[in-house]
């Protein structure tokens, strides 16, 4: 391969570029990214960056020295518009094209929008520009904030806003947030963190619309109630950025369809990170975005799938002073047992806790609040067990 083009200049794209060089690719490396910024880390956007504890410098994923070593052509502020049917030409905004032998798709996901969210005071939180805009508005003194969506990003944002002294309400359409991720029992425990943080959690009711003409004034709920708001943050999930691939030979179905080795329908096109549906599932987690590129790049350079990537799912979230960590593959019906620590009034007690998800006498997943050490031990055991099981099943 003489030229490889990485589309998407963020976490998984950067890791893919690093892997290309680390695995010996010494040809032309082109990195296309539609944001103007050099790769930066998103998780702090809803946490320390929003509260002002971290600044933009601390978000940077790379530095001048590494950038020089990568020896890549960076096309930042440039959107890819398409990939030809053979996967040999990337079309760019403005009609330019890049001829290429290999492509890494790393275009991630975008925040889902709400109809009418063009009003001033309405925000999403996915990009640095989003976070800058929100942070600036939050700096204008105590305000009434409604967060729509009680998922991880919604909860973290609510926590950060409450910490800054704002009055915060979280609205969640489901009876309880985070049930798909944590199961009902532990979702209830995490939901209790809102109450402890002084944030109102309104559940089981949808949003009918946003109120206001130029600037948002409130959120109207399905039952007619209106929650007054100076700022509304829409945290209702993310959609994979695949629109630019319409008309290519790739299969798009909630992400770019890949085999277990991140390889798409075309052997010289691989996909990684939030945009990739790898072996039937699409993760939106930092760790998978950093782990998939190694395997994806190995397969890209080999020209076929020689390695597979199904790392044990892992994510963390920081909210209301609680560091939540989860690893494994839980299923509905798993038994959940508090193995260490305890609950107080339905919420994590002072010292946190460790919960094990179990099925047929085996641990399937682990959840920890402020117990990183035993969490890490179980996470490693789970990973080890899986690596024993998977090769046998192949």
């Amino acid at each position: 391969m003489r030229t490889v083009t990485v589309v998407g200049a963020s976490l998984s794209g950067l890791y893919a570029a690093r892997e290309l060089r680390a695995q010996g690719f010494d040809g032309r490396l082109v990195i296309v990214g539609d944001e103007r910024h050099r790769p930066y880390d998103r998780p702090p956007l809803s946490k320390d960056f929003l509260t002002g504890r971290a600044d933009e410098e601390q978000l940077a994923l790379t530095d001048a020295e590494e950038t020089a070593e990568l020896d890549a052509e960076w096309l930042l502020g440039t959107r890819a518009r398409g990939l030809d049917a053979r996967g040999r030409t990337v079309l760019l905004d403005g009609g330019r094209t890049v001829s290429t032998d290999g492509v890494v798709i790393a275009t991630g996901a975008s925040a889902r929008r709400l109809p009418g969210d063009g009003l001033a005071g309405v925000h999403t939180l996915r990009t640095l520009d989003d976070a800058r805009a929100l942070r600036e508005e939050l700096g204008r003194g105590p305000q009434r904030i409604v967060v729509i969506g009680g998922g991880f990003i919604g909860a973290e944002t609510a926590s950060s806003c409450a910490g800054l002294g704002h009055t915060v309400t979280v609205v969640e359409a489901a009876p309880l947030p985070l049930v798909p991720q944590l199961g009902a029992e532990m979702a209830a425990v995490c939901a209790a963190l809102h109450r402890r943080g002084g944030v109102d959690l309104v559940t089981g009711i949808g949003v009918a619309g946003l109120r206001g003409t130029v600037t948002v004034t409130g959120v109207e709920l399905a039952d007619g109630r209106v929650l007054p708001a100076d700022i509304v943050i829409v945290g209702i999930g993310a959609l994979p950025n695949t629109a630019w691939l319409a008309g290519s030979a790739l299969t798009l179905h909630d992400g770019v369809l890949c085999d277990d080795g991140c390889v798409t329908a075309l052997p010289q096109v691989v996909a990684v990170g939030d945009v990739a549906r790898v072996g039937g599932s699409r993760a939106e987690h930092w760790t998978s975005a950093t782990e998939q590129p190694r395997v994806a790049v190995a397969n890209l350079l080999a020209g076929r799938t020689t390695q597979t990537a199904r790392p044990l799912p892992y994510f963390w979230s920081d909210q209301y002073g609680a560091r939540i960590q989860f690893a494994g593959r839980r299923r509905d019906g798993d038994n959940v047992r508090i193995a260490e620590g305890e609950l107080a009034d339905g919420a994590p007690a002072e010292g946190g806790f460790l919960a094990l998800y179990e099925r047929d006498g085996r641990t399937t997943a682990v959840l920890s609040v402020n117990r990183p050490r035993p969490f890490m031990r179980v996470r490693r055991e789970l990973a080890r067990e899986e690596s024993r099981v998977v090769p046998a099943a192949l």
Partner: protein
Amino acid sequence: MIPVCRLEDLPEGESVRIETTPPIAVFRTEDGELYAIDDTCTHQDASLSEGWLEGCLVECPLHAASFDLRTGLPTCLPARRAVRTHRVTVDDGTVHVHLAAEEGTAA
């Protein structure tokens, strides 16, 4: 020089955090060696004393950066900067940390 604990209270394979500013992590490896480094991971804010100790390496509990206890250097991403290392001595059965800053060494 900061007293940490009695040597017998820090079994092999274990670590302890001392609440200095910034905090310091002291490790006793499976081989019985003692090492001290700054406790806060240079990637974000996790506490390395809660990390996974294997040989002379400690893996961060949050995003799995790994540091060499002997040099403080990261051996893999996402950390790119070293943690400071501090000298450790055992005097009359008590473990002591000698702050790098006080000894005038950079690492």
